């Protein structure tokens, strides 16, 4: 008898254990502590000590500056962050303040995850356009930093090949760039004349290659209506882009799939020109005394680079909008823009902050990135369809690089994108 009871108790305990573990995941947000309202803030910066350090400093300063609100930081590793937000939104338990990757702002706004910040317009004076998540003129999110795409090479390489070193005011034309590749290739020093980072996948592909497409005159979507990609992604300009890009592989100027770390390959002398973000700056300058930073070439429609990195937004279900707004306004302070730029080495999002950092001030060695971001940046299309477009463009680009029929690939991409937009009722708000 007692053995039986023991067995039942054991089984009940096991059931209970499962039930409580499942229950723990739910609940546990909001609430009041010491009379102050708690405001939850989620960030993707888990594991990135430099970035997280700045966030914690801002939060501590804010919590110390008043006693009505207490901001509480929850950190996630970047890979798990978007899933966490989508899961929380599904169960209606989003925190008040979230950070968002730039291209997702429109999608999350459309889905009703986030709402306009409602901060005064003059808050954003002197801020780089690419760092604002704007939809229909309303600011849904702002970021502290941006990244610029650029090309890196060495003065000695370019001089040996007899190529002019371009500047922001006078970039290479597409023709000049193609000639430069031929000349560098003729030096016989490098495995490949240029490394566009074709080994990268995911969001790198639209971030890095859609600006090239835009420079040719094409685009991911027709930005006049945001309702079709017809003509933009499969027009003659887009075909020219596809032919040129695949041509680099055919001519042996570029690898169809480059190495895991394009920067390391460049530093080790495997490629003559490197196309990447300004995060590679320190590595490249550390390796070569004669490193030069070059704006991307102008293929007819001006040089273009991507824009938009992580930004801060206000969730729709927030119970204490005033508190969240107070924090977001407090955080939008030149001091913190400077902190961010110094901690992670990326471009400060306001001109005031840039002026305070020697490297980014007039004449500073990193000033060129600010100028690139300021003059050439084109944000990825601000439409809720973006995550879908991004996925389709990734596959299309990889297929084009693999030597597929560009017209068929791009037509299929366009019909998939148009079908998605149509299925979603045009993604209208």
């Amino acid at each position, binding site marked *: 008898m007692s053995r039986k009871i023991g067995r039942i108790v054991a089984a009940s305990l096991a059931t209970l254990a499962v039930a409580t573990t499942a229950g723990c995941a739910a609940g546990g947000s909001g609430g009041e502590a010491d009379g102050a309202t708690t405001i939850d803030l989620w960030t993707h910066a888990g594991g990135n000590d430099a970035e997280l350090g700045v966030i914690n400093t801002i939060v501590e300063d804010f919590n110390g500056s008043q006693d009505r609100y207490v901001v509480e930081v929850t950190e996630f590793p970047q890979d798990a962050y978007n899933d966490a937000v989508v899961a929380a939104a599904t169960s209606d338990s989003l925190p008040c303040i979230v950070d968002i990757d730039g291209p997702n702002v429109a999608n999350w706004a459309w*889905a009703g995850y986030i709402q306009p910040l409602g901060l005064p317009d003059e808050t954003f004076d002197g801020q780089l356009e690419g760092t604002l998540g704007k939809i229909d003129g309303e600011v849904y999110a702002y970021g502290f930093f941006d990244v610029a795409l650029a090309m890196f090479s060495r003065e000695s390489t370019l001089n040996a090949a007899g190529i002019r070193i371009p500047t922001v005011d006078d970039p290479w034309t597409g023709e000049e760039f193609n000639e430069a590749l031929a000349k560098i290739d003729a030096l016989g020093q490098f495995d490949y004349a240029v490394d566009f980072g074709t080994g990268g996948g995911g969001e790198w592909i639209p971030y890095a290659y859609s600006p090239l497409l835009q420079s040719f005159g094409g685009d991911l979507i027709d930005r006049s209506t945001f309702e079709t990609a017809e003509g933009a992604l499969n027009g003659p300009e887009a075909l020219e882009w596809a032919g040129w890009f695949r041509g680099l592989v055919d001519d042996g100027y570029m690898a169809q799939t480059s190495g895991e770390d394009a920067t390391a390959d460049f530093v080790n002398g495997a490629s003559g020109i490197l196309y990447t973000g300004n995060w590679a700056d320190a590595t490249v300058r550390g390796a070569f005394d004669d490193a030069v930073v070059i704006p991307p070439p102008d293929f007819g429609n001006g040089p273009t680079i991507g824009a938009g990195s992580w930004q801060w937004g206000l969730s729709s279900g927030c119970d204490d909008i005033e508190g969240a707004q107070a924090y977001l306004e407090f955080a939008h302070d030149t001091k913190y823009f400077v902190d961010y730029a110094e901690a992670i080495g990326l471009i400060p999002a306001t001109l005031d902050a840039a002026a305070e950092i020697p490297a980014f001030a007039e004449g500073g060695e990193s000033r060129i990135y600010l100028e690139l971001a300021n003059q050439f940046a084109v944000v990825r299309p601000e439409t809720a369809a973006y995550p*879908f477009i991004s996925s389709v463009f990734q596959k299309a680009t990889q297929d084009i690089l693999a030597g597929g029929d560009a017209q068929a690939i791009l037509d299929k991409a366009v019909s998939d994108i148009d079908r998605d937009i149509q299925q979603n009722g045009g993604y209208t708000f």
Partner: protein
Amino acid sequence: MSTFRTFDAARAESVTTPPDPPAGRRRSRTLRGERSAAAWMISPAILLFMVFLIIPIILAFGLAFTDTRLISPRPGQFIGLDNFAYLFTDPVFWASVRNTFYFALVVVPVQAGFALILALLVNAKVRGTNFFRTVYFLPVVTSMVVVSLLWRFMYEKDGLINQVLGTLSFGTYTPIDWLNDPVWALPAIMFMSIWQGVAFHMVIWLSGLQTIPAELYEASEIDGASRRQQFLYVTWPGLRQTATLILVTITIAAFSLFTQIAVMTQGGPLDSTTTVVYQAVRTGYQQLQTGLASAISLVFFVMVLIVSGIQRYLTRERS
């Protein structure tokens, strides 16, 4: 070995014949008590099984007929067979189906056969078999993600595999860019998958081999059977149950090919390695089309069901 078997047989007998059968009424009460305890015992497993398997499957069946999105302010609407109509006209989906069958058709026989050869080798009574068993088994305990990453490096154009082939052929071999070549990408992944999984099935074959009584071998030897005849008339019939198990498990594993694709090729180049499961995940998570992804899963479910049904029929016990 034979001592173990005798011991097992004795134990099996003692289980089937209870030591002292209790009287009728007392027995049924105990039985009821045992039943309720058993129900309690099994409830956590049933609960988890329902929440994480049965309910999602039922949901997927329903969602397949809607245009539900992962992130959307619009509730999903019933759209009938639209998702399926789209799928059956989508060349990428057909490429996925083709690749999935190609992979299964090659991997199932090759991996099962190779595993059997390995099992026969390590079953030989020579010194050091434990060492080889361990060596063969190492890839199985390594995560598939790690294995795929390492092989991606090895398959690079100037990677280890091309270097070795170049050296062995004294330079007559022109390097193949394995994962970037539409013809070679899937075979390269097959080779790696077999290498990774073969030892697991070797162990299952091995357990089957060890259930064949040694007396049968002794008897056949006395009858003058050759090694080949021994394999055909003693070993192979003795492995019948094991073979069915191995066939079914490898087939299901082969059909659900995903990790290697996600890590190594993302379905490229030119759809030469895309698979049904990879398309389902890409459609559902990257492209947020929950409804369409559910439709792909439903097709996949039916596909696996039919193939398993055919296998059951072919390997059924003939009386």
